[in-house]
């Protein structure tokens, strides 16, 4: 009898204790979403800072950091701190960082950098009412989730696909194009968009293949190159990152393929030229982003100089977009908006001049207007050659 009652009592006690704990938690879990008046507010950054594509993440972070440092240097009433959330580009890590960022009380987020992590965390930002502006996520479907807090400062793959196709058809007069991708979330998406636009434009795609690539590994493209050679194409479009695009271009040339190499924003990096060597010459790279280099003028030149002074490096791909995304939040805070709801409302109706372009959003979060910029490798340098509407390679 005594044993049994001991058991019963223990069970009752334990269940009561755990219920009480659960009850506490449900009442005490609402974080402070307002940062209070004056003082400082927190802006978050989410992206890859230590993973395989950290170059892109660091570019964006540096752009955003520059904008915020410049703002703080003016001694405003409300200062801004940039909190970094390093997702390593992994959607699962992003999912465990996002609730933390919400709890930390960030009032806005520059990011997430990549489309995958944006797709997985979008619902969290939306639920918490955190306005988020991505500087680099270009997947079309991100804008179809009815997330009112979602924005991006560059045109999506829905523009880049037709833009690239237009360049291939009009400027290069391509009749047959091989479309290859790296089986990554980004590469396949872009390659599919390009292939669809090419087909719509009456271009034949005799080779549509993928060679999976992970991290910085370089696969052997031999069988794909044999197929491309056999098909006698006018150009090759590669959807993927520079780590593979460079060696792929090189292997193509060594395999005796002379067709023009065309790729997207993932390959828009000086490392593409290092990897491809002489095979990089005349390659065309497209991007919805603005690449600002020493040839820039006006506000872009000011940005270039400030960036170089701050990080002793040239601004990279997406640095201007990171700067612009942060600028939108800074303008909101300048207007005295310091809580998520007010900032989100401000961002929805923003209209400011960024260093990359005029920043104004559609209701679904996309940037108004969509320009695809083209670059060509000439004598080992990436040179701007206009927009996809009027390419001049």
């Amino acid at each position: 009898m005594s044993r049994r009652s001991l058991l019963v009592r223990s069970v009752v006690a334990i269940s009561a204790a755990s219920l009480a704990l659960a009850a506490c938690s449900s009442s005490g879990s609402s974080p402070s979403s307002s940062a209070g008046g004056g003082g400082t507010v927190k802006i978050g950054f989410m992206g890859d800072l230590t993973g395989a594509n950290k170059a892109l993440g660091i570019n964006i972070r540096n752009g955003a950091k520059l904008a915020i440092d410049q703002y703080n240097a003016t001694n405003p009433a409300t200062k801004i701190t940039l909190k970094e959330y390093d997702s390593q580009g992994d959607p699962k890590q992003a999912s465990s960082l996002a609730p933390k960022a919400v709890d930390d009380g960030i009032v806005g987020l520059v990011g997430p950098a990549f489309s995958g992590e944006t797709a997985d965390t979008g619902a969290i930002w939306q639920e918490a009412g955190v306005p988020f502006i991505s500087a680099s996520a270009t997947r079309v479907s991100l804008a179809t989730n009815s997330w009112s807090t979602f924005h991006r400062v560059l045109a999506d793959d829905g523009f880049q696909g037709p833009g690239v196709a237009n360049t291939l058809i009009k400027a290069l007069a391509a009749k047959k194009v091989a479309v290859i991708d790296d089986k990554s979330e980004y590469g396949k998406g872009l390659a599919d968009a390009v292939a669809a636009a090419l087909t719509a434009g009456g271009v034949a795609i005799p080779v549509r293949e993928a060679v999976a690539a992970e991290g910085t590994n370089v696969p052997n493209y031999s069988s794909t190159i044999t197929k491309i050679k056999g098909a006698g194409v006018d150009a090759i479009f590669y959807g993927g990152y520079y780590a593979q695009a460079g060696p792929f271009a090189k292997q193509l040339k060594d395999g005796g393929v002379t067709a023009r190499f065309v790729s997207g924003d993932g390959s828009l990096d000086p490392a593409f030229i290092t990897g491809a060597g002489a095979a990089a010459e005349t390659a065309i790279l497209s991007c919805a982003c603005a690449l600002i280099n020493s040839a820039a003028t006006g506000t872009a030149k000011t940005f270039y100089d400030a960036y170089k002074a701050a990080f002793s490096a040239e601004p990279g791909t997406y640095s201007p977009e990171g700067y612009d995304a942060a600028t939108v939040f800074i303008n909101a805070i300048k207007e005295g908006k310091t809580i998520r709801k007010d900032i989100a409302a401000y961002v929805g109706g923003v209209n400011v001049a960024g260093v990359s372009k005029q920043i104004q959003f559609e209701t679904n979060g996309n940037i108004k207007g969509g320009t695809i910029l083209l670059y060509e490798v000439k004598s080992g340098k990436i040179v701007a050659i206009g927009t996809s509407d009027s390419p001049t390679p």
Partner: protein
Amino acid sequence: MKLLNPLRGKTLPWTGAFEAIGVRWRALPRVARWIGYLAMFAFAISLPDIPNLADIMAPGSSWQRILFFPISIYVLLALGLNVVVGYAGLLDLGFVAFYAIGAYSMAILGTYHGWGFWEVLPVGIGGAMLAGLLLGTPTLRLRGDYLAIVTLGFGEMIRVTANNVDYLGGPRGINNIPRPPSIGNVSFMQYGVLNSRPYYYLVVVAIAIVIVIMKRLEKSRVGRSWTAIREDEDAAQLMGVPTLKFKLWAFTVGAGVGGAAGVIFASSNSAVRPTDFTFILSATILAAVVLGGAGNLPGVILGAFLVAWVPEAARGFSQYRVVVFGAVLVFLMIFRPQGIWPSRIRAAEFKEGEGGIDRLGGEVGVVQAQAGAADS
């Protein structure tokens, strides 16, 4: 002889405590043990809400979220793999395949065909078990190391196929998978976006159920056959144990647990993609099982907790964490090859000088040392 074998008999000083706990625990009366189980369950349930624990355990990310993923999901996976590796002594390097099958079952049936979580759960478990049976039937005849490469290949085949087939979403995977239906009106049962607690509770309940099943299996004829196969397959066969049948059992049961973990993960995360199912995950779960103590449930749970949590806790050193993880694995295997908290039987096997499964070749140093000890 010390010169020849300087490490023999050396072990990490504090690890003996775990065996002591085991001995004490088994000496307790049944009622006390049941109270202990309940207390552990209550402790697990209260983990997200212990004051200040989040700041200590997860300074850089959301404690509640990492309790659900990766910690509790890894625990569930490790319990499944433990059946294959710990109980039956089979080397499986592609366990992630079954997890993927469960997850993609949930993704396809839930997203494309509108099935609910509870309807998919048995299908996902069944699908994974069927896959285990189909893979196991031809391959379990192979010796240990061949099994390792075949399972590794199977895991990669599943991932590559998911990556290549557009119906399965390709590299983007499948999004907007229906979450488990909310229960009643209480907040800790609302399966929403921000609050990870309900998902964590769901996995804890699943873990509890799996533990009960495992405990029953351990003591059954099946469990004893597994032990026999692990210790000496040929002897077991001679004694009339249908080894292939019981190896298949182990494979299938393990696969089922992996499948369940997959269904829960897919539904809770609301998205799956092929990169969730890489070989590294298989290796990590295997490391969890062996590190914790293959065959011993508390050990396996501890191991899974460690491999899931340490990288999160070391977030500030994210560049170095994998380096440290690798070094720790080597270090622990050198000083504690039976795992941190091995089962009684396995510990005894190790004391005899062989921990079940195949021994390494070229262990002559040991033989010499023993012979030397006998002489002196």
